[in-house]
């Protein structure tokens, strides 16, 4: 009798353990972010901003360190060359060469368009907010081109100071984010970031072409194509500073 009870307990524990081995949404998302950001990165990116009546091409270089720090510097066209954005933790500064001045962005401006593109300042450094301020669950999984594709839904924690009502990710089992859909507070899809090409870059698989499409505007998108990338190298401390933002040392 006693051993039966013990047996039942063991079985129950085993069943629970088995259920626990189902994919953990938090872990999948964190791995994907770590893969994308790495310890540090330096990438060369071409950005195309498309509008119904015009299209712009910008060249930029981006550096990141850890989860929160990033620096982006525009190289071309001449009109925009020298503009730079620095993100340190939650603070963002922009440098404009014409003004020769560094301006700290007010928090209220973080959702404004970044350099006229469909990305906001918030998107810039792939803020870790999505990991810390949202709860995650695996909504579905499917097989696609020999990979498992998890669909993860991120819903803001109660009272979290965030913009989106929901974010849905499609993440491949090799930690690549394939698609990201942002829902507004009414849970209507507002915009979608899609990975369009994956290739080896700096010794790892990397989404080398991604397009952000606002879903409420016709014929409007921004594509970023990464042509060069180095990851996990040592970055000098001066790099992510205001003085380097204004007077680049390299």
């Amino acid at each position: 009798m006693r051993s039966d009870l013990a047996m039942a307990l063991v079985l129950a524990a085993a069943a629970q353990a088995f259920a626990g081995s189902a994919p953990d949404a938090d872990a999948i998302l964190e791995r994907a972010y770590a893969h994308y950001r790495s310890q540090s990165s330096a990438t060369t990116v071409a950005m195309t901003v498309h509008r119904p009546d015009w299209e712009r091409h910008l060249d930029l270089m981006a550096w990141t360190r850890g989860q929160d720090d990033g620096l982006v510097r525009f190289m071309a066209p001449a009109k925009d060359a020298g503009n730079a954005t620095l993100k340190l933790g939650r603070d963002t500064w922009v440098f404009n060469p014409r003004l020769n001045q560094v301006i700290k962005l007010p928090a209220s401006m973080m959702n404004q368009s970044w350099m006229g593109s469909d990305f906001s300042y918030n998107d810039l450094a792939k803020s870790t907010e999505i990991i810390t301020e949202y709860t995650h669950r695996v909504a579905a999984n499917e097989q696609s081109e020999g990979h498992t594709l998890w669909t993860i839904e991120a819903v803001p924690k109660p009272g979290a100071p965030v913009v989106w009502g929901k974010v849905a990710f499609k993440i491949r089992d090799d930690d690549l984010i394939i698609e990201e859909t942002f829902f507004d507070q009414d849970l209507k899809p507002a915009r979608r970031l899609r990975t369009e090409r994956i290739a080896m870059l700096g010794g790892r698989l990397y989404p080398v072409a991604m397009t952000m499409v606002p879903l409420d505007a016709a014929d409007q998108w921004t594509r970023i194509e990464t042509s060069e990338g180095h990851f996990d190298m040592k970055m000098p401390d001066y790099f992510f500073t205001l003085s380097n933002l204004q007077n680049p040392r390299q």
Partner: protein
Amino acid sequence: MAIAAALLVFMLSFQIGVYGVMKESTLRILDGYAQFQPDGYAADPGLDRSIVDPDALIRDALGIEGVTTAAPRVNGFAILAKGERSFGAAVIGVDPARERQVSSIAAMVRDGRYLEPADTDTAVIGSSLARNLQVSVGGTVTLLGAARDGSVAADVLRVVGIYRSGIPELDRSILEMPLVRAQDTFAMTGRASTIALAGRSLDGLDAALAPLRTLAQRNHVALLDWTALEPALHDALALKYATTALLYLTLVVVVAFIILNTLLMSVLERTREFGMLLAVGMRPRLIGRMVWLELLTLALAGCAAGLAIGAAATSWSQHQGLNFSGMGELLSQFGLPARLYPALTPASALIGPGAILLAVVLGGIVPYLRIAHLTAASAMRGA
């Protein structure tokens, strides 16, 4: 009755006067009496929607009777920075000379001066914004935003004036700069975001809406009248009119009932007299008509007296203005001056007394019917 009629004349005139001032002064702050806007701009304002060749449109608009000013504007959005401090704000490029005639911001400059036609790198900002940025007249602010073509809009402007409207949103979030400079900064050369229209009066401009609408259609832009520019104000006034109409209606009904009651009493007291008249051969209907005429004469005299008293009091206060200086702060929130003037118009003068008169005339049917059914014998006995 005379007092009630006088009261109605005064109240209605005061209401129309105050609401008129409220409408005009609210619209005068920034909106103008009407605006040309690119199609879809109201729902989704942005530099990507703009009016091409605004000068031609302005020339045509000024040719329309009732339009005295048409002020082109470029509406941008930018980060304003001063040292360590930075705030988001609406940046409006204005033609200083024309803007002065549309918007009262020029008159609200408390410190320094308003923009002038020869200005280039100058700006006028709201008092709260100036305080937040810790900038005073003579200081500079840095402007950073996105231009129409997606490039960076950056500029450094010298603050020449600080305005205070008493409306927190305006004082906190608006910078005005010269139009040409703004067109250059925001890559809007030869374009405008909106064109604000003004006339000698709101009614005058409203009368010109039809030809303005035709002009707008021809140029493929939208024309927004004041109700579209300030829908909240329009709804608030409509609600206000509806609730006070109820009040007036109550007053009219009460007055009419008091008069009818008095009259019915006198009819009852005179029943024997009517019986006599019937006995000597007068027809009941004729007696009824006589009583009804008495009533009408009484009402007419009362209303005329009321109209005279009300109109006299109203036109006196229209001349003097009513001082509400104790409520100045509250009134300025609505863009109202501390001294308010009733507006005596034919409508405001006649509606109140007219309603009383009509109520009495209709109510007079009751005694008429009563008399019409009298017979000589019962009337003389009944009394």
